[in-house]
Structure formats: structure tokens, C-alpha cells
């Protein structure tokens, strides 16, 4: 069976190497020229518990995890029980025949005696590598490429472990070849790619590279799932550029350190997840009041509170946009994909530095951990906007004023070490020099000054194209979304088009301030608007309603897992039918609390 798009899911017990199986196989697929898109669920248990890894692979760009399975590889009974319902009627079930005997259900079945095979090669821990070998055969991928990937990723050259792994790979491959699938059930071929420079990368990795490209030299962090690997990545890299990564005693200290570093001129960042961001709210407001640039990454996970640390949510939008005691101007940036994590991190740094305000960058668990093939980064888009520094020699006009009122709201900043630029960064209401002052006039002036900067930034946000817009110009139905839902939405729209339903979509990546003109225009062209979100209350829909004073149709999922393209498509169909039946007036909006 040749398809241009295949989805395989692997299920089994944590500790059996499920993720390794999936990741290595995904890398093999990528190495043969295919694109890949992975997703995983990690158990609540610390060790043990059920793990799921899913790979979608195709010879073209992929935007979502895939809805139905072409193949299920069940390492144990639970792996079968949990997932077999998603297997297509024409799908293939592969199972560890030493662990389970699935009932006949009319679908193709193939038993792989993983335990036995591992015993035969005297490498019990190698079951998952045997499975990789089997997969390579099932998918008809070139064995030599598989071998190369295993050599790069599964052991040191010449080492015993690598030798064993290669034996295991071959064992799996051969077993399938010899037991019924000499002719593989699936065949996928990657497009011939000259000098293949695509990357296999996760969102957190792309984000970390973005930070480096943006000139970040200081990172302070505190471990938290699913943001820790940003810290770990930068721990290795920052010292190489003369920068610093410090693991702080908590998130409050982490942000404080980043702010302190930024005060001296460093491009500084911290990353956390929702619980950590919740702890940073007081200091975030202080960064606003003192006009100190800083980038705060929030890799969103399902809450509230501890919630489900390894599951996705888009529930921190309001926290990121608004949480502060009293009104605090700040930017909020939301990348939409693994690839985009790179570019938006650069934008986040540039907004922070140029406008001297904190920026919250909202990623999420889904795009942070999933591995994906993406085009190489376009370094011509990685421009560094510097901070506006005070020209102290030039200003013979008396004392330096850190918070001088200007048209743009941006005041030239002096840095410790610059003679004559001494001032005290001040969280109390202050006059331009920084001296505390409680008169109503200055309080108002400084509040307006800070918010003015958000307005001043609009041209940059346009220039940097901090939005994505696509679809049918003449569609009645528009979709406005943010963040990582873009993938399933993109595919759902394609499904819809295949069914003759037109639609258009817009994804702003700068959430504060929103690209107002573009959104107004979009809504004017596409008056029936769907807002899909991975949260309960419809936080973005709420923002849009407050701004555009109209109804939006909402699609909310709050289960810790991303949208399936089919779920979005179903909603599009439903809306379309309502429109068709001319009954469409205003679809009742679920009450917001």
C-alpha cells in the first residue's frame, strides 16, 4: 500500500524504550528524506506507566499529529487496549506476540515475538531496537540509512552497546522480511533532496537556538516540566559565547537575576511553565515599572495548579497578558510552531530590548517537546535590534534622565560603567530622573509613557510579519487562533476545501499588542469567525470579543491533548451546514465565567 502520509503509534510500558523506538525510527524516516511530526504522552508515574509515541511521516510538510493510525505497534496488552480503536480498518496491527494475543478484528495483524528475539540475541534490553528494525522493513525504508542513524544515536563507535544495537536492528528487519512481509505493507519515499539541510528539532530546541541567535547572553532558570530543557540547552551553550546560565533557587530569583543582568545591558531571559510564571508576576510588574527589558518564556502545561505537568494547554494567556498589580504594559508573543519558536524568540528579544519592557513568550507543552522536521533557519531574519543607549557625552544639558518623556515612550538607557549615567531604577512612581514622586501628574505621565511604547511598536510588529494569514479570500468563514493550534487548523481547512468548504485563517503571533488593522480587515472579510483554543473559558475569544464587540464561535478543548485536525474539521462542517441551511444567525456562545 503506497500512501503519501502515514501515522504510526507505539504504545507500551515506560522503561521499555518506547520513546527511543519512536524517536530513532522518526530520525530514520527523516534521514531518508521524509518529513516527520511526533507526539508523545508521558505517564503521571515517575517510572512505569503507559507511554505513547506517535509519528506521522510524509514526503511533504506536515502540520499536525494525524488523526487515524495506519499502524499500531503494541508492546503490551495496554498498548493494544488503549489505542486499537484508532487504527484504520485498512491499518496494520503489530504486536509483541510474547505479551499478548489480540482478538481477530478483520484488520491486518502481525505478531512480533520481541522477547524471544531479544533472548535469541542475548540482549533483553534490545526489544525496542528490534522493533525499530521491524518498522524499517514495514515501511520499506532503506536499511542502510537506518543503520547510519543507529550508529549516530545509539552508542559510541566501536562500543559494545552499538554492536548489540546493530544486531538488534538487523534481527527485527530480517524477522519481518522472513515472516510474511518480504513485500512491505507500506511504502513511503522521501523526495530527492539535494544537500538535505532540514532539521529534526523540538520547539524548546528551536526556541533556545532563537535565543542564541537573538544575542542572549544571560539565562537564569529553575527546573520545571516542560521548560527545563531550555535551561539545559543553554547551560551547555551560553558559556561558549561568554554568557552565563545560572540555576536559581526558585522562579522569583530566576527572574530577578535576569532583570539584574539586563540592567547591566545583557540580553536576558528566563523560561518556566505556568506555576513558575504565577510566581513571577510581582517582578514582571517591576520590570515594567523600571522599564527593564527581559524575555520570560512560559511553556504552557495543563492546570490549574500542578494539573498535568506533561500535558498541553493554552490556559496561561490571560496570566501572560494581564497579570499584574495595576496596569502594566508588557508584550506577549506566541509562536505557532516548532519552527516559529526560533523566529518569535528573536522577535521577543527585539521587542524587549528596543522598547525596554518585559516580553512574555507563550509556547506550550505540545510544540516544546515534539520532534519535527523543519526547513533550516533563515538567518537573514535573525536581525538584532539593539537597546537605545544614552549618549552621555552628547547631552551636556544637565543630568541624565533615565525616564525622560519622549514621543515614542522609549528613553535612552545608561548602563553601569557609563560615566555620568548614574541613576536608580525605580519601582515607585517617579519623575524622569527616577526620583520617587507621588503627584497625580507624574503617575499619569509615566503610565501613559509605558503604554505608549506598545503603540510605538506596531510598525515593527507589522514589519516583522508577526502573523500568519492564509486561505480563501472570499470565504465567509474565518478562523482566528493563536499558538500551536495552527497545525490542526491548517489541515482541517484543507479537509474542508476538499469538501468544497471555503475558509480563511489568521494567527497573530504578537498578542499584546494585537495586529488590530489586520484583524479588523480579516473579520470584515470573513464575518463568521471560529476561535479554537486549548482552554476552558476561551481566553483569546474573550480578548477578541472585548475588542471587536461581536460573537465568535468557540471551539474549546481542555483535556491536555492537542486538537485533531478532524475535530476542527467537524466544527467547520457544522458551521458550514448551519450557514447553508440559512439558519445561521448567531450560534449561541457557551457562557463565559
Amino acid at each position, binding site marked *: 500500500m503506497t500512501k503519501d502520509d502515514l501515522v504510526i503509534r507505539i504504545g507500551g510500558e515506560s522503561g521499555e524504550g518506547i520513546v527511543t523506538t519512536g524517536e530513532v525510527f522518526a530520525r530514520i524516516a527523516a534521514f531518508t528524506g521524509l518529513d516527520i511530526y511526533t507526539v508523545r504522552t508521558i505517564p503521571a508515574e515517575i517510572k512505569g506507566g503507559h507511554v505513547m509515541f506517535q509519528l506521522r511521516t510524509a514526503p511533504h510538510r506536515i502540520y499536525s499529529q494525524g488523526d487515524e493510525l495506519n499502524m499500531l505497534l503494541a508492546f503490551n496488552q495496554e498498548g493494544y487496549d488503549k489505542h486499537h480503536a484508532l487504527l484504520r480498518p485498512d491499518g496494520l496491527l503489530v504486536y509483541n506476540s510474547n505479551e499478548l494475543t489480540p482478538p481477530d478484528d478483520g484488520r491486518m495483524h502481525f505478531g512480533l515475538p520481541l522477547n524471544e528475539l531479544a533472548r535469541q540475541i542475548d540482549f533483553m534490553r534490545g526489544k525496542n531496537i528490534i522493533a525499530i528494525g521491524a518498522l524499517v522493513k514495514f515501511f520499506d525504508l532503506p536499511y542502510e540509512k537506518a543503520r547510519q542513524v543507529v550508529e549516530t544515536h545509539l552508542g559510541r563507535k566501536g562500543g559494545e552497546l552499538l554492536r548489540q544495537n546493530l544486531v538488534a536492528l538487523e534481527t527485527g528487519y530480517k524477522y519481518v522480511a522472513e515472516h510474511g512481509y518480504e513485500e512491505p505493507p507500506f511504502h513511503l519515499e522521501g523526495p530527492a533532496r539535494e544537500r538535505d539541510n532540514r532539521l529534526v528539532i523540538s520547539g524548546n530546541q528551536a526556541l533556545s537556538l532563537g535565543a542564541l541567535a537573538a544575542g542572549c547572553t544571560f539565562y537564569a532558570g529553575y527546573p520545571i516540566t516542560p521548560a527545563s530543557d531550555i535551561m539545559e540547552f543553554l547551560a551547555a551553550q551560553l558559556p561558549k559565547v561568554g554568557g552565563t546560565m545560572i540555576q536559581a*533557587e526558585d522562579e522569583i*530569583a530566576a527572574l530577578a537575576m535576569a532583570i539584574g543582568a539586563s540592567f547591566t*545591558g545583557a540580553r536576558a531571559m528566563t523560561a518556566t511553565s505556568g506555576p513558575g510564571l504565577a510566581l513571577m508576576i510581582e517582578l514582571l510588574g517591576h520590570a515594567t515599572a523600571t522599564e527593564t527589558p527581559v524575555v520570560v518564556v512560559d511553556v504552557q502545561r495543563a492546570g490549574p495548579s500542578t494539573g498535568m505537568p506533561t500535558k498541553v494547554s493554552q490556559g496561561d494567556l490571560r496570566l501572560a497578558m494581564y497579570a499584574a498589580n495595576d496596569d502594566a504594559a508588557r508584550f506577549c508573543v506566541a509562536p505557532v510552531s516548532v519552527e516559529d519558536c526560533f523566529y518569535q524568540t528573536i522577535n521577543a528579544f527585539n521587542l524587549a530590548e528596543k522598547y525596554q519592557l518585559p516580553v512574555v513568550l507563550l509556547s506550550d507543552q505540545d510544540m516544546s517537546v515534539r520532534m519535527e522536521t523543519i526547513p533550516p533557519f533563515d538567518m537573514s531574519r535573525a536581525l538584532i535590534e539593539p537597546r537605545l543607549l544614552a549618549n552621555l557625552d552628547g547631552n551636556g544639558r544637565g543630568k541624565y534622565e533615565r525616564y525622560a518623556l519622549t514621543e515614542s515612550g522609549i528613553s535612552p538607557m545608561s548602563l553601569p560603567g*557609563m560615566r555620568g*549615567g*548614574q541613576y536608580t531604577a525605580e*519601582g515607585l512612581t517617579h519623575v524622569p*530622573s527616577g*526620583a520617587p514622586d507621588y503627584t497625580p501628574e507624574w503617575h499619569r505621565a509615566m503610565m501613559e509613557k509605558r503604554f505608549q511604547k506598545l503603540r510605538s511598536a506596531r510598525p515593527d510588529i507589522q514589519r516583522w510579519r508577526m502573523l500568519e494569514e492564509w486561505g480563501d479570500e472570499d470565504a465567509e468563514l474565518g478562523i482566528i487562533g493563536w499558538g500551536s493550534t495552527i497545525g490542526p487548523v491548517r489541515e482541517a481547512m484543507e479537509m474542508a476545501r476538499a469538501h468544497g468548504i471555503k475558509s480563511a485563517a489568521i494567527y497573530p503571533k504578537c498578542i499584546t499588542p494585537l495586529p488590530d488593522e489586520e484583524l479588523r480587515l480579516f473579520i470584515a472579510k470573513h464575518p463568521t469567525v471560529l476561535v479554537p483554543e486549548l482552554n476552558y473559558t476561551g481566553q483569546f475569544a474573550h480578548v477578541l470579543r472585548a475588542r471587536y464587540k461581536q460573537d465568535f464561535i468557540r471551539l474549546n478543548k481542555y483535556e491536555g491533548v492537542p486538537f485533531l485536525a478532524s475535530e476542527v474539521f467537524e466544527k467547520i462542517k457544522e458551521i458550514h451546514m448551519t450557514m447553508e441551511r440559512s439558519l445561521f444567525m448567531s450560534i449561541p456562545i457557551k457562557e463565559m465565567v
Partner: protein
Amino acid sequence: MAIQIGSAMISAPVKLAPNEYKSEIKPIWCPGCGDFGVLSSFYKAVSELGIPPEQMVVVSGIGCSGRFPAFVEAYGFHGVHGRALPLATGVKLANPDLVVCAVGGDGDIFSIGAGHLPHAARRNIDITVIVLDNEIYGLTKGQPSPTSPFGMERKASPYGSIDRPINPIMLALTYGATFVARGFSSRPKETTELIKQGIMHKGFSFIQVYSPCVTFFDTYAHFKEVTAPLPADHDRSSLKAAMEQAMDARTLKLGVFYEEIGPSYEDSVRELRERAMAKPFDLQKLMAAFRV
């Protein structure tokens, strides 16, 4: 002529009178507040050390004491309550050639900021912490602080406080601070000396200064009575001796309890960075490592 101040390399010492370290902002403390004394000692100390105003950063939290940076002709950072230490850590890490002082009150450093002190100290980062200890929350009008005496009656403790006070010197020693001292705002000469030594010390310097709050807890007479200099033969290199002196409950000793000479955090960071930078960094190459 470059000089070394702690871990900071200062391009050239300046000759400024203590007065010239006064900023344009007048202190807003109550007349008689101990903080005036500490501020004067500070002006004197940095003047004698010849620190260029632009190479010095004074960081603080919130409190009467937190207003300190604004009164000094230097770079300053008036942070939020309790976070002076991590803020100062960020400043120093990002630019080790700055002389960084963190100033705070007993509430700021020992109560809401209590979680940062052990970590700043154990890292041995080269900042000088000056706690203006008035054993009370001054700015919020007189609630008991972690150093307030047991039984203290205030509006917030109308039946007498039932919390036992901490011992700041023991704390600092336990945390691994490498310079630990105590002063008293009424002894300006000695306090100046402590601040000088603390700033010159390479590593984490902790200086507790009794600085009475005339408005909410006037302890001038009390501290005059119960304080005394450390014995002349006190061995400041002995942690044990320092601990013993710190544990003396009858007399509160003044002076340098402890000093340990050794590498500071900056040294470790530098060494680590050198190892990391041995090979030239190339972002393109790093990205290439992610190729399929």
C-alpha cells in the same frame, strides 16, 4: 592604574570626598534614624576605596532601608520586597567588573527574602550585603520582624510576639558566607571599616548593622549596652571561633566574625567559561547538528 576591588577590576580609582557620593535625592528618613549613620559610613567607605560612582551598583528591596540606593551617587536598583540578593546576583554575574552592594532591612532580607540568602551565600558570589537591622518593620509602621525580641508588643502582636528571633550572624556563617561582620550605626568609624573590608573581600560579604528605628523601636540605649567589640585575639579565619562568638547570647559582638579567602563564584564562572570557550563557537554549526 587599574585596581582590584573584590573580584572587580576597576579602571582607575577616583578621588572623591564622601560628600560627593551623595546623590541629589535627600534621604527621607525620620530624623535620628540609624540609617543615616550607615549611609554616612557607606559614603566614607566607598570614598576611601576610591570607587568610581559609575562602576558601583547598589541594589535594595523595599523598606525604609530600601531607599538607600537613591541617596548614593552610583547606579542603583530599587527592587521589590525581598529580592535584593537575586537582583544583585544578576547584576554581578552579567558584569563582574562592577562593585555590587545589596542593602536591605531585617524584614527584607530575613523574612520575605529569607530564601535567597542561603543560596547567594553558598555560591560565594562577590556582593556585599548590608542589612540595616532595626529589629522591626519600619516602613509599614512597626510590626515585629525576624530579629525582634520575643515578647515584643506591637499592634500586630498585642499579646507579645511569640516568635523567637533568628541569629543573623549564625545564619550567615552556616550558609557559608566568606565574610561575616556586625556593626552598629552609632559606631560610624568601625562601620566604615567593616564596609570597606566587606567590599574589598572577594566573595560573599555579609554585614549586619544595628540601625535603630527611632520611630517604632528605639534601641540606641539597648545596643549601646549589650554590644561589645569582638575580643582582640578573635581568630577570624576560624569558623568554629566565629560560631562561638555568634552564639554568645549575653554580649552582641561587633567586628569581623569570619573571613575565608578563596575563589569566588566569579572565579568559577570564569574558569568554566574558559573551558567552554576553548573551541570557537559557531551558531551555524550548532544548528547543523540538528540536521536530519
